[in-house]
């Protein structure tokens, strides 16, 4: 077995023969203080080296020790004995203080096996740092709100007194969550009902709904039910306006895109082609658009009854739909 080993950080270590060191020192009439001064350690360290059988010390110190004893380093190194790795590191703190770290330039190159492992470790560390950097870039690139859009989905018509759903989809290219204020102004003769999530209702003329929320994941959906006042004139057109404000101190309100008008009609809002029945495609469209909003009561029962029947018609006297079987 080699008598030279590496400590952490690649510091070469050697085993020395304690008894031989004592004998050499005494033969030459040297004191422990002299040897300690030449090597640069304390007398306690020299004493410990001499009293242990095969102490394991830094190669640099072994070189100085050999110089102090006026012999070759090979004369004080123990060959063929197992290394006792814990010996020097386990020494009292005084040893550490007495044996300052050797500058890396003075160290011999590590063996190839360690060199290749170091390359792999460095490569992996570089890869991890690169990934961390990319993650930070990705994170901070989305720091702003990016491109924010608000899109309203509204039926083309609705019967006065019958609730209809309105959906507002807010999307953004930003990856980080941010706060927004969504404002929706209803037509003057429109009454808001349920909101998902709940809105703040400003009872004015025209009525205004507001949501203050946080958008996460680039997409948020706001929905509500509303109905035209029963006395609303049939075929009249009603306008919706709205916008989304992000960080109100900096940005103006972004106007809402999508549908913005609704006509008062005898036909059910789900009957998009106004043919007096709700067919498969109309039913699927309604459920695909509004069915995913949990708790939004947009009148499924009535829609399914009309779909399952041959048709329907509006009864102005009872202010309800009659199902045709």
């Amino acid at each position, binding site marked *: 077995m080699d008598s030279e*080993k*590496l*400590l*952490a950080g*690649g510091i070469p270590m050697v085993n020395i023969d304690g008894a031989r060191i004592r004998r050499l020192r005494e033969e030459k009439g040297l004191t422990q203080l002299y040897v300690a001064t030449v090597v640069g350690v304390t007398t306690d360290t020299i004493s410990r080296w001499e009293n242990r059988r095969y102490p394991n010390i830094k190669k640099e110190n072994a070189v100085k020790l050999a110089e102090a004893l006026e012999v070759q380093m090979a004369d004080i190194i123990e060959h063929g004995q197992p290394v006792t*790795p*814990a010996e020097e*590191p386990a020494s009292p703190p005084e040893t550490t203080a007495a044996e300052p770290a050797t500058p890396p330039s003075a160290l011999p190159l590590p063996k190839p096996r*360690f060199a290749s*492992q170091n390359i*792999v*470790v460095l490569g*992996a*560390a570089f*890869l*991890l740092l690169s*990934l961390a950097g*990319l*993650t930070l870039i*990705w994170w901070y690139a989305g720091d702003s709100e990016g491109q924010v859009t608000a899109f309203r989905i509204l039926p083309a018509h609705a019967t006065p007194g019958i609730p209809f759903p309105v959906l507002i989809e807010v999307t953004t290219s930003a990856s980080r969550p941010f706060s927004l204020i969504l404002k929706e102004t209803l037509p003057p003769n429109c009454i808001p009902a349920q909101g998902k999530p709940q809105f703040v209702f400003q009872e004015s003329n025209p009525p205004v709904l507001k949501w203050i929320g946080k958008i996460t994941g680039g997409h948020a959906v706001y929905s509500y039910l509303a109905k035209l006042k029963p006395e609303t004139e049939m075929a009249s057109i009603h306008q919706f306006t709205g916008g989304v404000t992000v960080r109100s101190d900096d940005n103006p309100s972004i106007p809402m895109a999508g549908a913005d008008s609704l006509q008062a009609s005898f036909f059910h809002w789900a009957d998009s082609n106004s043919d007096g029945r709700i067919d*498969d*495609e109309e*039913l*699927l*469209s309604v*459920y*695909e658009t509004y*069915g*995913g909003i949990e708790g939004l009561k947009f009148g*499924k029962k009535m829609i*399914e009854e009309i*779909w*399952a029947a041959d048709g329907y018609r509006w009864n102005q006297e009872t202010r309800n739909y009659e199902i045709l079987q």
Partner: protein
Amino acid sequence: MTAEKIQFSAPGLLFLALLVLFSLPAPLRAGEARVSGQYLSGAGQDIRLQITVASPAPSTLIVIQNLPAGTVIETSSPAFHQYDAGKGEGKWLLTQVRPGRYLLSLRLVHPVAAGAIGGEIRYKDPASGRLTNLPIRP
């Protein structure tokens, strides 16, 4: 401390690096809905139809069952939402659909011959909004 004790495992580090790489969020891609139907029993008195829905799932399916005109149904599970005995056409409405398998079954008063029935699944693709009509044959 010995030199060996502070060695990092190179394969371990590479594994960690790959784990971090594949853990990075990837942009979501909207995919077409994947729905299929298969008759487990397509003749006789008991008709059984299995619908398989994969992700991304449409929220609603309409399953149309065509039987010989005048067929009388003893039971249907789940119950038909529409049935026109004169045409022999029945419709199931499946709402709040999630990925998985759905079993629809009918018990008829009189058996029907193999090949006398057929079906269709209708749904709107959640990504494109396109209406899909998917025929099913026994």
